């Protein structure tokens, strides 16, 4: 399997070349285009309960698609849901924790599991559940805005809306920035203090801030 990221960093898609018989798993709706020799198989991977958990808690789709190249190599293009970067990481018998909806596509051998982030994540703005992607294989995940890799040694603070993913050797706690005054007035609200050593991925834009900004432009029906 070979891949090429096109259109980085603003509106990237990933072009994957599959050898004969090779396959890749993707979120429902992620496929943009493909050669005609690629067969698609839709299934609730991980069983009904597993898929339900993935859909309800992690914001992914209930069904996932498996694309297989038949009779020669094939080419397929995937795009993430939002405008933002796509990041590739080769997992070698290791795991990565991704926030809600970040997973785009990956090798079929990768195990995807919903993980409870603890009560603290109620305030994290990233939902209660994370996804743990584990195993060996290629993984593509997306962000809102660009993706930056941050190496954490000891401690590091990230705004809750900017977390894309992190290595499981890191743990975080939710805390407020400064005192009560800054909680309400600084515009920062809650942040995540990461502890441990490892890599974290941040996104350069924040969904909720964008939603608030876009809301101002929404057409409002006049009351009569």
């Amino acid at each position: 399997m070979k891949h090429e990221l096109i259109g980085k960093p603003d509106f990237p898609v990933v072009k994957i070349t599959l050898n004969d018989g090779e396959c890749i798993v993707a979120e429902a709706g992620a496929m943009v285009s493909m050669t005609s020799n690629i067969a698609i198989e839709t299934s609730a991977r991980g069983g009904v309960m597993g898929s339900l958990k993935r859909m309800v808690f992690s914001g992914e789709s209930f069904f996932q698609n498996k694309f297989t190249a038949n009779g020669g190599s094939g080419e397929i293009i995937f795009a993430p849901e939002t405008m933002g970067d796509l990041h590739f990481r080769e997992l070698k018998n290791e795991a990565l924790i991704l926030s809600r909806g970040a997973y785009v596509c990956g090798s079929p051998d990768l195990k995807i599991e919903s993980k409870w982030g603890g009560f603290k994540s109620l305030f994290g703005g990233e939902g209660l559940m994370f996804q743990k992607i584990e195993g060996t294989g290629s993984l593509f995940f997306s962000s809102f805005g660009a993706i930056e890799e941050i190496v954490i040694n000891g401690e590091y603070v990230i705004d809750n809306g900017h977390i894309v993913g992190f290595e499981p050797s890191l743990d975080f706690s939710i805390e407020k920035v400064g005192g009560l005054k800054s909680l309400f007035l600084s515009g920062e609200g809650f942040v995540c203090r990461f502890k441990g050593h490892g890599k974290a991925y941040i996104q350069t834009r924040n969904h909720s801030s964008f939603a608030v900004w876009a809301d101002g432009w929404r057409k409002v029906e006049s009351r009569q």
Partner: protein
Amino acid sequence: MNYKATLYSEQFTDGKVSVELQLFHGDLLIARHDSGSVEFDLKNAKLVAGGFDNNMLYIYPDHNVTSPAILVQDLSLLKEISASSNEIVRQKAMQATGIQKKKKFNKIAGIILIIVFFSGLMSIAFTQSAGIIVKLIPVKWDEKIGELGYPSAIASMAPGSTKIEDKYVLQSIEEIKNRLSVSLKNTPFKYNITVLKSPVENAFALPGGKIVIFTGILLKVDSPEELAGILAHEIMHVEKRHAMKQIVSRMGLSVLFQVIVGDMADAGSVILEVGSELLSLGYSRNMETEADKEGIILLSNAGIPADGMIQFFKKMSENEKELKSMSWLLTHPLSEKRADELAKIYKKYPPLNVKKFSTNWKILKSHLK
């Protein structure tokens, strides 16, 4: 024992390197990598439980630095350190284990709390929606469940009992039943009564309209009005489809799913399969209260005074010994509150145009002996 671990330090190009750990004398930890080794004196070291799943251990040389650091995933190292002969080292290991266990406990407690919360919501939603779902289920199924449940109900309550064929008894009971069923407006059910010879002091209705009365209870009853009270209550269980509501709320989502998806045949077979077994579970208190109230209204419409029913309750519960032997009362316990409630409802719905029954109950009883 050797443990696989990761050593984090700025001196390595990638910021980290894989190492093999070995514990010496319970307090000296040596981390070996391809190009050398690092020693950690555990007496000064800081041990912290960490990682997203709380299944990792960080070891720092002392409390003030965050580099170099060792990350171990195999927590049996913590166990080995806990067995150290050095008191300080042992306490550090215990502390780290304590924190790790507490964090894990918090996580599990959180999950359980959420599950309990949601299943609570679900069950509330379900009892509320059972009535709506039952409306989608054809009345025929009630009859089918009643038919299927009949043999097992008789077998468990009064095995080997025979049908009473005496004309006077059957006609008298038929008269009461007809007075009641005429007052039911637009009922989809057909009621038919079977009288069985048995000392069992009970009477019950199966979904769909089949009513069974044992001679045991007929001998305890002193007037047609008293029996009418019992029958009115049982009939209302059938009319309000309480059995079906019980089945639906107990079987939960699978029924809802099948009813919505539209495969009635499938849902039907499931309901029939479990339904007859669920019949033995009895009704909820709310259902009993509803049957009481609706029963009295039915009596009122049929011109039968409901004090017969209340009298019967009171008469039976006065004698405690009798109460124990009386299985109908066991499933319909008469608390003072219930008697008061019944009396209150009766006051609200007095019988319209009281008509006496033609039966002489003494003669009826003599026919049963």
